[in-house]
């Protein structure tokens, strides 16, 4: 268990999350992907804290906790939006949601 391996794992998680967010059509998948990326970031925080020069100061941990809290809030709002969108369009496929098109 070394820092580089942890970092590679977290980058792997991040990229899988990215993959989900970019490639899937379903809005919920995009949310899942985003959550995954956030989790990967959290993993980095913890890892750097643990391997860092000052592990007695749990700064990395605190950031991770806050990130989890914010991610939870984001998930709640995001899922609420999915439901609303579904009611409007009867679809959760993001490809059909291009009202922002210029």
């Amino acid at each position: 268990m070394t820092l580089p391996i942890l970092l590679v794992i977290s980058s792997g998680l991040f990229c899988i999350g990215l993959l989900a967010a970019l490639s899937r059509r379903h809005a919920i998948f995009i949310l899942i992907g985003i959550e995954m990326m956030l989790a990967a970031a959290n993993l980095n925080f913890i890892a750097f804290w643990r391997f860092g020069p000052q592990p007695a100061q749990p700064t990395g941990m605190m950031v991770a906790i806050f990130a989890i809290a914010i991610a939870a809030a984001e998930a709640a709002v995001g899922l609420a939006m999915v439901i609303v969108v579904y009611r409007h369009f009867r679809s959760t496929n993001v490809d059909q949601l291009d009202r922002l098109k210029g």
Partner: protein
Amino acid sequence: MSTVAFAVIAILTLAAALAAATLQKLMHAALSFAVMFVGISAFFFLLGAEFVGLVQIFVYIGAVAVLIVFTILLTRDDTGKVRSFNWGGVIVAIAVFAGLVWAIAKTKSLPLTPSQIEPITVQRIGELLMTNYVWPLQCVGVLLTAALIGALILVMEEKS
């Protein structure tokens, strides 16, 4: 021992993540998603951040995963209607991964062994939250409240 555990957890987590990202059925994906979070929590435990691991399990598996499942049920949209898969995303994801790994490999003097520490107790975290991090804590509290109310309003609006 810890190395074996680490390897198992790593493989499990990544496999679950991949499953969550690629499985066709949303419900399966959601379950894999929960498994992945268990894996991440396990990492946290291994790294000595037990509290964060617990929080992760509570929040994600107890709340977010359940929320997702509920949403799936509410929208009755279990399978993605469009089966086609977007390869552009794959390319980008792989590119980003390669870039990140290259950056990691190129970075020298990354510490290889964790430093020995005393376990961080929940009490200490609580103290910190109430002292040094009290402002962020309050802000997160407000944020959570706002998010809760906002989510409710979003969902309720249609009914009225």
